[in-house]
């Protein structure tokens, strides 16, 4: 493979995983922006999103007496995909809201270390739920349809190239990009979205304007959870695996992405996600996948030491 084909290939893989990372990073950044808490459990909410999706994707075909989703009639596949997406988004949104209500809200006036420890505790609980639910080894996340592995250039367009760009790659973008645009529209255009930004900038002043703070914080967790749920489905679909510990790696990448973009900064989380995706793909390819976590961790440390406010600007909570 020529070097530029390799480079393009890395970019393509990185961009797909980057989109997933960005969706998770948005949850870190939204929550940090509004209550200045690093929600350590967030990566595990994402993991449970993959588990929920996997359950739907295997359970629905079994209801129809089939062994796998790929045996379902083709016209039902988009519906299955949509059902899995909605179930995962709603499940994770409700889960994230419940976490806030039970584990963080009672500690809102406590010293800052308390909710942080609470978050680590929640993370352990979620990891163990994942472990009991789907077991200790990675589980295969089946392709919903054989066509998702088709290569767009060779198999669909008939162009001969060394670069792989599968239908799956395209699907990742088709799912992730509209969600990010929707989030952006929500926070810039809607009344509740603006209330979220106002609360992130100055909670007390927001309360003085009649904004219901508890409701707004709950809404923030709902949105972050929904995006993590979507990322969970996309990740399962793209990487064909579901694993109880994937939230650690996914969470680490996404957290680094959020810090890279300036935590609290929505646009930064998006850019940081794509960048980390590409860095991880480069490391997977040039070094070894086993080094990737160390590379990303190293990057996180470098950012925190040399540019703690992120590449895109201050880490003030008002950067919504």
């Amino acid at each position, binding site marked *: 493979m020529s070097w530029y084909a390799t480079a393009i290939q890395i970019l393509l893989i990185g961009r797909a995983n980057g989109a997933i990372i960005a969706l998770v990073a948005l949850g870190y950044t939204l929550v940090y922006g509004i209550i200045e808490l690093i929600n350590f459990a967030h990566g595990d909410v994402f993991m449970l999103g993959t588990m929920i999706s996997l359950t739907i994707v295997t359970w629905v075909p079994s209801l129809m007496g089939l062994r796998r989703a790929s045996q379902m009639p083709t016209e039902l596949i988009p519906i299955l995909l949509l059902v899995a997406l909605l179930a995962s988004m709603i499940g994770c949104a409700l889960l994230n809201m419940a976490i806030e209500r039970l584990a963080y809200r009672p500690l809102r006036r406590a010293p800052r270390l308390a909710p942080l420890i609470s978050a680590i505790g929640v993370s352990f609980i979620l990891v163990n739920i994942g472990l009991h639910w789907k077991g200790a080894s990675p589980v295969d996340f089946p392709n919903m349809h054989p066509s998702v592995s088709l290569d767009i250039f060779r198999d669909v367009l008939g162009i001969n190239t060394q670069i792989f760009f599968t239908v799956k790659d395209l699907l990742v973008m088709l799912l992730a990009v509209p969600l990010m645009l929707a989030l952006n529209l929500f926070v810039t255009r809607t*009344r509740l979205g*603006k*209330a979220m*930004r*106002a609360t992130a*900038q*100055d909670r*007390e*002043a*927001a*309360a*003085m*304007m*009649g*904004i*219901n*703070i*508890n409701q707004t914080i709950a809404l923030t967790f709902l949105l972050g959870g929904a995006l993590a749920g979507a990322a969970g489905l996309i990740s399962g679909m793209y990487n064909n695996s579901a694993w109880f510990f994937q939230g650690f790696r996914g969470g680490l990448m996404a957290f680094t992405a959020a810090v890279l973009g300036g935590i609290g900064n929505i646009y930064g989380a998006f850019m940081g996600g794509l960048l980390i995706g590409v860095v991880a793909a480069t490391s997977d390819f040039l070094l070894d996948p086993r080094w990737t976590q160390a590379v990303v961790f190293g990057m996180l440390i470098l950012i925190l030491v040399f540019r703690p406010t992120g590449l895109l600007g201050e880490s003030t909570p*008002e*950067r*919504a």
Partner: protein
Amino acid sequence: MATLDVQNVHTYYGNIHALRSVSLTVQDGEIVTLIGSNGAGKSTTLRTISGILQPREGRILLDGQPINRLAAHEIVERGVCQVPEGRRIFSRMTILENLEMGAFARKDRAAIQDDLARVFDLFPRLKERIGQKGGTLSGGEQQMLAIGRAMMAQPKVLLLDEPSMGLAPILVETIFQTVQEINRQGVTVLLVEQNALMALQVADRGYVLETGAIVLDDSAANLRENETVQKAYLGIE
């Protein structure tokens, strides 16, 4: 019945006893001022009325109904809105967005446009800069925005915490004129000030707060003539 009736309110920060049995009333249509030196508890009083702080003892009534157990946003819904100390506008939101946030609690969407026009009448400068981020405004413009934002809530009672702080004398004059204009439009005003001279000129009545307790209350005219007030707050020997 008083519009706002604060009865024997005690407020604490942890175990710091910040308000010691504060009582004050504001009648419909009045401008009442609360003066006192740094740390007297003026902001604490307003923050307690707004529901940011909960009084440990005492009651706060709005038109006879207790509001001291309500959440801050519910108090705004009942018609009490505050212009906080230090303005605290949303610095990364535009002027228009800041004003929209002021109207957040309102249900009458249609009337909001009219009130937006009213705010721009009061402060034409805000209209010229409608798309500008709040944080890039000058101190005076930020104060105008903070007042305009509170007016968007269409309050029955407006609480103002040191609106003249850090402004040039000419602008202080303008701000006080605006407060009077807002009052003429039917809004009841509770005005916290360190600038006692100006405050006692626009107010009908006043209260003097010292280390968390009310030590004097009288008509503004009488307070202006009061010797202790003159010495402590008006700089007259």
